[in-house]
């Protein structure tokens, strides 16, 4: 939280001074290669035996509740399973893949380079760490589950049975262990080293090397190298990826790009709507004003007209009395004027 406050001040400063450019200058070109030496794991489906050692290790390392069936029970392979709030990784068996033997595929959080969950979260509870893990911070999570909507791999799970403190649950890439210099639990447990942990760029090199050495064994594609902008967890397989429930229709667009356009429109609206609407308001107002003015004008004319009449009357009266007796003059004039005054007063109202 302190972090986010610092950020906030950062923004204010940046917004004020416009030094934002400084830190994002290289970013401005729009090309992001992810954290240089971030780690990842390469899963080789041609080696996996389906022994569930990884599931066991994961369960122990993360201190998750013991499952209904023991990890030695291989009947779980009979149905398709997915990750849930107490299972961060599952291995599924696929029988009709075209291969002569069943193929096993481990699934867990793929730790995307541009995590959809992170761009979905409105409290920034998800963060791609320099180590490569996508870290989740339950201390700020509101529980809106938008991250689960966003994840193209259907990984994050939710504690639906927690009344008041439900958390989103998913693989952590064993970040705490990594920081102690240990391997992820599942990797360490794999008897055939079907899981290779290392720097992502090295893993890609190795994967390509394997494909070159055993062209007959592998599909010539590393799943996760480019999917959804690339993932830290990658897969090699001898059978088409769709056969082992890895969607190949996700495309290579990093998740944030889906919404960046819409978000870019926000400032536009804030900037232009008030101007536009204000303008329209003023125009309508002006129309009304003109209408009023016209009305007032008519009234004025009316007044002017009546005024004229009154004066005329007064003059006529004056001449009349002029012709009359001399001594009546002053009195008569005074009288006439008084009348006129009275008239004025009336119209004045």
């Amino acid at each position, binding site marked *: 939280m302190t972090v986010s406050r610092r950020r906030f001040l950062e923004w204010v400063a940046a917004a004020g001074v416009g030094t934002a450019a400084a830190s994002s200058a290289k970013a401005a070109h729009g090309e992001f290669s992810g954290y240089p030496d971030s780690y990842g794991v390469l899963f080789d489906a041609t080696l996996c035996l389906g022994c569930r050692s990884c599931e066991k290790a994961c369960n122990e390392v993360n201190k998750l509740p013991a499952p209904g069936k023991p990890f030695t029970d291989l009947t779980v392979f009979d149905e398709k399973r997915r990750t849930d709030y107490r299972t961060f990784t599952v291995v599924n068996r696929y029988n009709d893949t075209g291969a002569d033997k069943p193929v096993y595929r481990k699934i867990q959080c793929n730790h995307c380079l541009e995590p959809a969950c992170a761009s979905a979260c409105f409290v920034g509870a998800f963060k791609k760490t320099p180590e490569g893990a996508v870290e989740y911070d339950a201390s700020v999570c509101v529980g809106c589950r938008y991250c689960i909507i966003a994840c193209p791999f259907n990984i994050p799970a939710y504690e639906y049975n927690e009344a008041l403190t439900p958390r989103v649950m998913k693989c952590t890439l064993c970040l705490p262990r990594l920081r102690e210099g240990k391997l992820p639990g599942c990797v360490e447990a*794999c008897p055939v080293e*079907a899981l290779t942990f290392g720097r992502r760029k090295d893993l890609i090199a190795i994967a390509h090397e394997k494909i070159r050495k055993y062209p007959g064994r592998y599909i010539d594609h590393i799943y996760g190298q480019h999917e959804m902008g690339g993932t830290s967890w990658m897969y090699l397989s001898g059978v088409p990826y769709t056969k082992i429930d890895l969607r190949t229709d996700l495309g290579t667009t990093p998740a944030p790009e889906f919404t960046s356009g819409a978000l870019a429109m926000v400032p536009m609206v804030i900037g232009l709507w008030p101007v536009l609407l204000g303008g329209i308001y003023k125009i309508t107002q002006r129309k009304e004003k003109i209408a009023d003015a016209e009305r007032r004008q008519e009234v004025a004319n009316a007044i002017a007209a009546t005024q004229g009449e009154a004066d005329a009357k007064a003059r006529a009266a004056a001449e009349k009395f002029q012709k009359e007796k001399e001594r009546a003059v002053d009195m008569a004039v005074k009288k006439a004027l008084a009348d006129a005054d009275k008239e004025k007063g009336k119209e004045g109202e």
Partner: protein
Amino acid sequence: MNMLRLYGNVKNYQIILLAVCLSLMVVFASGCGKSDAGQQIERADIITIDAMTVFGRLSRPAVDYPHDMHTRALKERGKECADCHLKDDKGVMSQKFMRLTDENEKTTMQIYHDNCITCHKELRAGGFEVGPVVCGNCHSRKPEYVSSRQPMSYDYSLHYRHVKANNDSCGLCHHVYDEQKKELVYIKGQESSCRDCHQKEKIENVISMREASHQSCIGCHIEKQKGFQECSGCHDAKILGAIERVDTPGRIERNQPDFTLIGAAEKDIESSKMNSVPFDHKAHEGFTNSCRDCHHETLKACKECHTLAGDEVGDGITTQRAMHEMKSGHSCVGCHEKHKYDPQCGGCHSLMEQGRLSQHACEICHAGPEPEKLAKAKGKYKSIADFKPPRSKTKLTMAAKDIPEEVTIGIMADKYEPAKMPHRKIIDTLMNHIKNSRMATYFHGHEDVVCQGCHHHSPIGHKPPLCENCHGKPFDQSNLQIPGLYGAYHRQCLGCHEQMNIKLEKDCEGCHAAKQS
């Protein structure tokens, strides 16, 4: 105003509307669930009727027609082939439906529509269960059937069976066209594969392979009332597989050599440098299923088409590529490479880098005389035996006692007891496989090469390095290319067992007992 009357009481209107919408919603929603229902049934006898394509683009989808289904149905009603397939003046049955040639679009279409629909209609009227009578059900984008047709493969065994059945009268099938007599004649020694002349499409007066085979094969079968007369007989994988195989089919005699020295053609001798390759043709006939495995359609010698510099007759494929192309099943190396992953060999070879030849592999094949000596050498060698015989790789140079009986792998034992590996037993098994494989005995460069199956990337010798000498601590990040010891052991053992189909009883405990703690 009339609107008012039209719409009546607003309130009822709303209620009705709501009801309609909700019901629609349910209907549609449930529809969305099972969007792509309807499984297609696999059949080997599906003929796609697209006869109209010769007249240009089809206006409706082509019809997928289950032939056998009709053959049977008609047979039950006492009908026969001739009811659908007319015979021409020579008495050859046309493979078209109810016609000998396609005159024009209209008539051809008429023929199908009239006959098919009328027949279906009649039978339906007669209370039989029959196929469609409306357009869309025949001309469907998502037809009820999907073709599982297999190309007919005529191997040595099948050939042998036919030869015996017709007591060696090759002329029954094999023929050439005699220009003078204007007829098909059989000339001994000039047999070739059907496809040599009968191409995919009809060329001049040479009918297509499809037409030829169906004419001759089915014609003969029907005439003799032997063998299959239905599509599925020759084109259904299951039925084909069920045909009894002759283990030792007599050799097909077509004046091919028992043994030959593969070298450049005379005209190329100058420019050829590599030594010739002594080749046991007879033996390889035993390793292949049909002549075509190596010779494509023709039965010519390789070098006739694949010249040293490449020639358009051989699609510009040079001799070198013709012999060494890794991906082709026709080439020597390609075929050998494929066999390296047979169960007996795969244990070791599948774990080695694929698609590579070692430098010293060359002279193992190219052990014949130099090109210039080739002409003279021809008569000199009669068989591979006259040659420097292949070294016997069936005996190890070391004594049995020098080979550890059992190796205990305990270096990583934590959850489990150390694993006891029956070292010598494994070697003996492998040696047996080598003994039984001529390829292995010939090509394994050294007696003790078998050790390298596991002790790879290290010199051949009595004291190969230990696994842990190269395979360091598991998941070593400074060295991701080489699997750690943990993975190395499991991959080697399990990988080999899997390749050789040697089941391991009770998974982990099978090799190492669980530790009692």
